[in-house]
C-alpha cells in the first residue's frame, strides 16, 4: 500500500480513454463499477469537450457481482455497437473489474461483431495513465495498420497527441504548418482526430513524427519494425530543438529542408538587454519526461537560466531524465510523490519553478514564481487562444509564459532602490505574486512603515530555527529585497548550522553570501 493524496497520473484505463476520446469512430467499452464514470468530466470540463467521451461503462453494482457481470458486459458491448455504430471498438477492464475476472477480450470476441474488436490488457495495480495511453494506441495500430504502398509525395504521420494532452491541439497545428513549409504533408495524425479507417492507412506515410514519446513510442517502434517507417527522435519544443528536428527530417527524407523562421521572435527577445536580468536565474524543472527534457535545454541554452534541479513523475522516462541531469550537473528526482518534490524545491530554493499544476501550488505556498510546462494541468491550461509548445510559435509562447511570472528586470531594480519608500515598502507586496504567500519578518527595529505583519508569520519565522539572529544581522537581512530574502535567510542559516554557529551576526550574513556567490 502506498499512501497518496495527489497523483500525477490517473489509472491506465484513463489513458485508454484519452486515446478513445481523441479519436473518432472508435468506441471504448469499459468493464467498470458504478462511479468510474467520474473520468468523463475530465474531458467535458477540463478539456471542455462538447460531446460525451465515446466510452460505455458497464457500471456494475454489488448486486450484479457473480455471473451477472459477464452478461452486463456483453449487453454493454451490444448496446454500444448498435447505438453508436463505431468502426471499431476497444474493450477492457478498470481496476475493480480486473479483480472479478470476467474476460472482456474473450467475451467481446465471441460476440461475432463485423467490426474489429481490440482487447486491452492494462495492469491497473502496476501501471498508470501514460502507459495506458501508449499501450492502447499501440494495440489499435497493431490491429489495424498494414504495410502498403507509400504516397507519391513525401508524407508523414503525426503520432502521440491524445485527448487531455497538454497543448496537443495547437502542437498539431504548428507542426502541420512547419512540415508543410518543408514540403511534407501529414498522412494521418493519430490518435487525435483519426478514425480507425485512418489508422489502417498509416502505412502509406514515409516516416513518423513521434510528438510525445509517453503516448506513442510503442506504436512508433512497432511501425518502424513492421511497416519500415523511421520515426523522429527529437521533440521540437524550443527553437534549438525545432532546428534539430528539421535537420532530422531532412536526413530521413533527403529533402532540402528550409523552414520559414521569420515569425520566430524568441531568440531576439532573449538576446535583448531587457532579458539580461534572466541570466543565471535558478530554475527547478519537473513534469513529464518529454517536457522536462525540452524545458531544461530551453532554460539553459535559450534563456540563460541555471538549471538547479530536474525530475519527472513517469518512470518510463527515468533513464532519459537521469542522463539529462548528469549533463546539467544536477541530481534527477524521479518520483510521483509531490511531498518529495516539495521537499526538493524547499531545499534547492530556486528562483523559479517550471512544473505541473501541483508545482504551481507548491510555488504559491513557498512564494516562488512558477510556469506550467506539463500535464497534469487544470482547465486554465486548455486555453481558448492559440498556444502551442512546439515549433517556432511554441518558442514564442514559451518565452512569454516563463518570463511573465518573474518580477521584470526594471521592476526588480526599482523595488530594490525604493524599498524604503512610503508606498513601495515590503508589505505592499509584489503585484506579480498575487497574494502575499511569503512569510515576512517582524524584528525588533521599527519597520519603515507602521503596517504590522500578520502574527501567524512572525512566530513561524523564529520558531523551528535553532540559530539566533542578532538584531543588527536581522536588520541587515531586511535590506535585502523580499523576493530573495527567504533564500538569503535559509542560506545563511544552513551556513551557520554547518559551521556549528549559534548566532548569526552581520559578518555571518556576508560570509554566507560570499560562500553561496555564483
Amino acid at each position: 500500500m502506498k499512501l497518496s493524496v495527489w497523483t500525477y497520473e490517473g489509472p491506465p484505463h484513463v489513458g485508454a480513454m484519452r486515446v478513445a476520446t481523441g479519436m473518432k469512430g472508435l468506441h471504448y467499452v469499459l468493464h467498470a463499477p458504478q462511479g468510474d464514470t467520474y473520468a468523463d468530466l475530465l474531458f467535458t470540463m477540463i478539456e471542455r469537450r462538447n460531446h460525451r467521451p465515446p466510452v460505455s461503462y458497464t457500471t456494475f453494482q454489488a448486486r450484479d457481482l457473480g455471473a451477472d457481470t459477464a452478461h452486463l458486459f456483453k449487453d454493454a458491448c451490444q448496446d454500444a455497437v448498435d447505438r453508436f455504430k463505431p468502426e471499431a471498438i476497444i474493450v477492457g477492464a478498470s481496476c475493480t473489474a480486473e479483480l472479478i475476472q470476467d474476460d472482456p477480450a474473450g467475451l467481446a470476441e465471441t460476440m461475432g461483431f463485423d467490426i474489429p474488436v481490440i482487447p486491452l490488457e492494462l495492469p491497473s495495480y502496476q501501471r498508470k495513465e501514460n502507459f495506458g495511453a501508449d499501450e492502447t494506441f499501440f494495440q489499435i495500430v497493431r490491429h489495424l495498420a498494414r504495410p502498403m504502398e507509400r504516397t507519391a509525395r513525401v508524407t508523414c504521420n503525426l503520432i502521440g497527441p491524445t485527448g487531455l494532452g497538454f497543448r496537443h491541439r495547437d502542437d498539431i497545428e504548428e507542426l502541420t504548418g512547419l512540415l508543410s513549409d518543408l514540403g511534407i504533408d501529414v498522412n494521418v495524425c493519430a490518435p487525435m482526430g483519426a478514425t480507425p479507417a485512418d489508422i489502417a492507412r498509416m502505412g502509406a506515410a514515409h516516416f513518423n513524427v513521434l510528438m510525445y514519446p509517453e503516448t506513442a513510442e510503442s506504436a512508433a517502434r512497432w511501425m518502424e519494425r513492421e511497416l519500415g517507417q523511421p520515426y523522429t527522435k527529437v521533440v521540437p519544443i524550443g527553437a534549438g530543438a525545432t532546428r534539430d528536428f528539421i535537420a532530422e527530417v531532412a536526413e530521413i527524407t533527403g529533402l532540402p529542408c528550409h523552414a520559414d523562421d521569420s515569425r520566430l521572435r524568441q531568440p531576439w527577445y532573449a538576446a535583448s538587454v531587457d532579458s539580461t536580468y534572466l541570466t543565471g536565474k535558478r530554475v527547478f524543472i519537473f513534469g513529464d519526461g518529454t517536457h522536462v527534457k525540452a524545458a531544461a535545454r530551453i532554460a539553459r541554452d535559450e534563456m540563460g537560466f541555471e538549471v538547479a534541479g530536474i525530475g519527472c513523475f513517469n518512470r518510463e522516462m527515468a533513464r532519459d531524465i537521469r542522463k539529462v541531469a548528469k549533463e546539467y550537473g544536477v541530481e534527477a528526482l524521479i518520483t510521483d510523490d509531490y511531498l518529495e518534490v516539495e521537499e526538493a524545491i524547499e531545499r534547492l530554493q530556486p528562483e523559479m519553478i517550471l512544473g505541473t499544476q501541483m508545482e504551481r501550488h507548491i510555488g504559491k505556498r513557498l512564494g516562488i514564481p512558477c510556469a506550467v510546462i506539463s500535464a497534469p494541468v487544470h482547465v486554465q491550461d486548455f486555453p481558448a487562444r492559440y498556444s502551442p509548445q512546439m515549433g517556432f510559435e511554441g518558442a514564442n509562447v514559451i518565452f512569454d509564459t516563463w518570463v511573465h511570472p518573474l518580477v521584470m528586470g526594471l521592476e526588480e531594480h526599482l523595488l530594490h532602490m525604493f524599498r524604503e519608500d512610503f508606498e513601495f515598502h515590503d508589505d505592499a507586496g509584489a503585484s506579480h505574486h498575487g497574494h502575499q504567500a511569503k512569510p515576512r519578518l517582524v524584528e525588533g527595529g521599527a519597520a519603515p512603515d507602521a503596517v504590522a505583519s500578520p502574527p501567524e508569520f512572525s512566530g513561524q519565522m523564529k520558531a523551528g530555527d535553532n540559530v539566533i539572529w542578532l538584531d543588527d544581522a536581522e536588520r541587515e537581512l531586511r535590506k535585502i529585497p523580499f523576493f530573495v530574502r527567504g533564500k538569503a535567510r535559509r542560506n545563511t542559516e544552513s551556513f551557520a548550522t554547518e559551521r556549528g554557529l549559534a548566532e548569526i551576526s552581520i559578518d555571518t550574513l556576508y560570509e554566507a553570501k560570499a560562500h553561496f556567490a555564483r
Partner: protein
Amino acid sequence: MTYAPTPPTDGGCRTAPVLKERGQREVFCGLTGIIWLHRKMQDAFFLVVGSRTCAHLLQSAAGVMIFAEPRFATAILEEGDLAGLKDAQDELDAQVDRLLARRPDIKQLFLVGSCPSEVIKLDLAKAAERLTLAHGPSVRVLNFSGSGIETTFTEGEDACLASMVPVLPETDARQLVVVGALPDVVEDQMLGLLSGLGIDTVRCLPTRTAADELSVGPNTVFALTQPFLGETHAALERRHARHLPAPFPYGEEGTTAWLAAIAAEFGVDAETFAAVTDAPRARARAAVSQASEALRGKSVFFMPDSQMEIPLARFLARECGMQPIEVGQPYIHDALHGPDLDLLPAGPQISEGQDVDKQLDRARAARPDLTVCGLGLANPLEAEGLTTKWAIELVFTPVHFYEQAGDLAGLFSRPVRRRNILGLEAAE
C-alpha cells in the same frame, strides 16, 4: 399542526408509477462524500483503501481543495497487496501508524472501503476494531464503504453517519437529533430557529468534533435535513430513536413544513410558531420570487444524482412555478421521500435508477428548458442547445432553510438568465 403546506389538489406523486431502469449509470460513487464531510468534521481523517482510480477520483472531484492539506488520502493497493490478504492488514496498520504520527490532531479515523477493497473482501471492520485498540482512546477508528458498487454519491455521507450510530452512548433524555452534514452557518440558523421555538435539547449528527457530546436512546426523536440518509435512518431506528417524517427544508414551504413537524412533536403553540417563522418566511418568499423570475413557466428535467431531486423538484414546481418533466433519483425511499412526493403536483415521470442513453433520448425528445445533471453530461447537452444546471453544486452550496431559499432559486435561474444574456437560441 396547521402550518404544513397544502397538498396539491391532484393528489401529488406519492402513488405515481415509478419508471425503474437498469443500465449504464452516470453517477459518482460514495467516496465523493468525503470531500464535504472532512470539512464538517474538523478532527476526522478519511483514509480510503482503494486503487489509483479512487485517488484520481477524489483529486478530480475535490478540485483545488486537494492543495489545502486536506484530511483525506488514499492507501493505494498495489500488486503485492492483492497476492495475500494478511499482508494487506499489516500494510494498513503501518500506513495508519505513519499517518497518525504525522497528524496527532486526528481524533476520528475513518477507513473507507472502495470497490477494490470490497471485491477482495478486505475486512476493514476488523481492521477498525484492531486499530481502535491500538490507538484508542485518543483516536477512534471506524469504517464504512464508499464503494461505487454499493453507494451512489451522497450515499457516502449516509454510510459514514450510519457507521457512527452504533457506537454512540445510550441516553434516556428527551432530545432532538438533527441528522445531515450542513455548512456551519446553516446549522447555526437552524439551531436558532429551533431554540426560538423553545426546543433546546438539540444535537447534530455529525458533530463538528469528536469531543462534542452526542448520545441516542428511546426518547430521542430525529429529523433529517438531507434526503439521502436511508441507512442512518435505519441505524437510528435500531437504537430505538423515532423519525419525524417531513418534507426536506428546501425553500420557504419545505423549511416551514420541516419545522412544523418538529413543532408538533414538541407541542409548540401556534403563536410561538408564527412569532418565530413569520418574518423569515416573508423574507424567503420575497427572495425566492425575485430569484425565480426567469424560471416561471419553464420546464425542468432531473437526471439522477444525489437523491435531492424529488424535494428540489417540489421546491421548483411549487415555489418557482416550474414544470417538472422527469424527476430521476438514484434511489427512492418511501419513508424519506414520501412527504415531498405528496406535495409534488402530479404530472412528471418519476424514475429510479438509470439507463443513461435512454434517459438522454427522453431528455432530447422533451427539450426541457432546464436539465439538472452531472458534469459529465452538462457541456455535451449545452452543445446540443439544452440549458443545464450541474447538480454537484447543490450539494456543496448552502441551500437549506429560509435564508438560503433565494440562493437556491438563484442556482437554477442563473443558467437560464445566462443563456438569455449571451443571446444563445433558447431550446426549441
